[in-house]
């Protein structure tokens, strides 16, 4: 089997897995609460606290929306599928673990894109948020969505049949990221330790791209942001592959 044929086979399978998730899980209560309502409430809390104007908070809102929505599908779907034994069907299919992980992540990516576009358009219409460079916003949403979707898939490798177990673990990572990635609190105002941690947060680079797209202010060059997000995606994918293989037993 040639490389092209193999790649095509893997992509068809990954798309089939993603499509299945779209049909089954997008309207699950756990996904809506974690992926849509939580970022919205966070935005309202910061707005009500008058930490910044709503317009200034929009880039941050989009950042945390991608984080929460992209990483909310697999922590719900994979444990449920383990319980129903449908996950075994995917594990036994003639596809590589890469295709399985990619397929699972794709559904998180699509969900995140959908929600982010809604937020983007709503902000544009309701708040008339000014835009400096829409290309940077698109890049930020696209790469951060894939990155956080892969993060969700990675955590979902934990061998449990209870979505709550995985959601709790993911939240241990997601919540601190909001505060150390310059989303609502600028990195420059963080203590030295916080600033150092910010560099190892994928949300920092995603937020940098989106902020740059809205207000032109960036900490890093856009290429650095994109490259860092690609590195995170690859790391998460590799770890996810390893964990799914290890926990299959």
């Amino acid at each position, binding site marked *: 089997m040639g490389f092209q044929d193999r790649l095509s086979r893997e992509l068809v399978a990954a798309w*089939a897995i993603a499509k*299945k998730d779209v049909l089954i899980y997008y309207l699950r209560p756990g996904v809506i609460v974690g992926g849509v309502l939580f970022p919205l409430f966070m935005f309202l809390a910061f707005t009500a606290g008058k930490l910044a104007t709503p317009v200034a908070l929009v880039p941050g809102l989009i950042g945390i929306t991608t984080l929460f929505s992209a990483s909310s599908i697999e922590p719900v779907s994979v444990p449920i599928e383990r319980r129903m034994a449908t996950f075994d069907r*995917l594990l036994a299919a003639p596809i590589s673990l890469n295709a399985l992980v990619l397929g699972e992540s794709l559904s998180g990516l699509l969900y995140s894109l959908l929600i982010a576009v809604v937020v983007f358009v709503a902000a544009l219409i309701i708040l008339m948020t000014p835009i400096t460079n829409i290309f940077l916003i698109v890049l930020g949403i696209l790469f951060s969505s894939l990155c956080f979707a892969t993060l969700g898939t990675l955590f979902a490798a934990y061998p449990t049949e209870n979505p709550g177990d995985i959601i709790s673990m993911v939240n241990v990572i997601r919540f601190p990221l909001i505060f150390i990635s310059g989303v609502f609190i600028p990195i420059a105002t963080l203590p030295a330790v916080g600033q150092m941690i910010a560099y190892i947060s994928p949300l920092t680079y995603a937020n940098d791209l989106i902020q740059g797209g809205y207000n032109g202010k960036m900490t890093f060059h856009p290429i650095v942001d994109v490259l860092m997000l690609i590195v995170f995606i690859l790391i998460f994918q590799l770890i996810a592959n390893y964990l799914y293989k290890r926990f299959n037993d």
Partner: protein
Amino acid sequence: MKGTNLEFEEGDKIVLHNGSPLLPTSTDGAAAKAIDTPTPSDGAAAKAIETTKTDAQAIEVSHLVKRFGAFTAVNDISFSVAVGETFGFLGPNGAGKTTTIRMLTGISPPTSGMATIFGHDIVRETVAARQSMGIVSETSNVYTDLTGWQNMMLAAQLYRVGRSERDKKATELLKRFELHERRGDKVHGYSKGMKRRLTIAMGLVNSPRLLFLDEPTSGLDVESNLIIRDMISDLIAGGVTVFLTTHNIEEANVLCDRVAIIDKGHIAAIDAPERLKKTIQSVQSVEVAFLDGKSPERLDELRSLPMVNDARKEGDKFKLFTENPTEVIESVMAYAQTHHTRVISITTLGPSLEDVFVKLTGLQHSGGGVTAID
């Protein structure tokens, strides 16, 4: 055999019009089909016989071991399954059946040893090995929030069945399993039997050369049972290699060319069902029913008859185990006369596959069924 009243093949037996089994002349059940070379009633059966003549192995397992920490679930098992053979894998709960299937399907890597599927190493060439197999797991693992049709399409895409072939195959299978009219309904509205049938249909969507069937008919209604049994028979006739795990020993007896009995991770025996039965000829029995049914003391009284090793009540009958059926029949007739009752039926039985299973796995009969000692 041309011109005889040959009807069809059942496992390692050729069934004649009067239902009596013709024992194979070969030690190997799969080869036995080739030796008798009947003139089959259809082309599919001919294909099956032709296929079994090849030397190719569908499955080859060599010194397979699986450990979970200190616990050894599968301990150094080796066997092979010929192309076109129907192979039964029997064992009590926890014997290592599912672990073996998980290794053979590439879900769980073996601790040591190797297994190949049509020559493809399941660890190193997992994708190639899986492409030619269909897997029907013990649980009906279908997506209940999708429709029957969507489930079929998902399975077809995972196995990369081409777009035009996908629709054709799905339609054909859904009709075959009498699910076509409900194809647009979400599966959570299906009955247990319908879900099971859909699971099997999904396992066949890639037209596999090898089918793993894990407890295909367990706990199903009669209609689903019949549909599934018919389908398995058709697959066998079509030359598909079947690896069947079942608790239903009679099902294995009827369908399988050979069976392996696994217990505590070891293979206790592998052979054709009829040959396995011959190894325990001492477990013959006499089945008897009395006109006045049962009395509480009757079982103990029958057990104490000369040459009766053990007795068991089975429905309205008693089954008396013996090495000398003739003498036991005489004793039973004398018993009936002494107790002023009449024998309404009496039959001598050879050992069943269940008897072999019980003997090899150390299980014991309890009431009408089989229970584990521990």
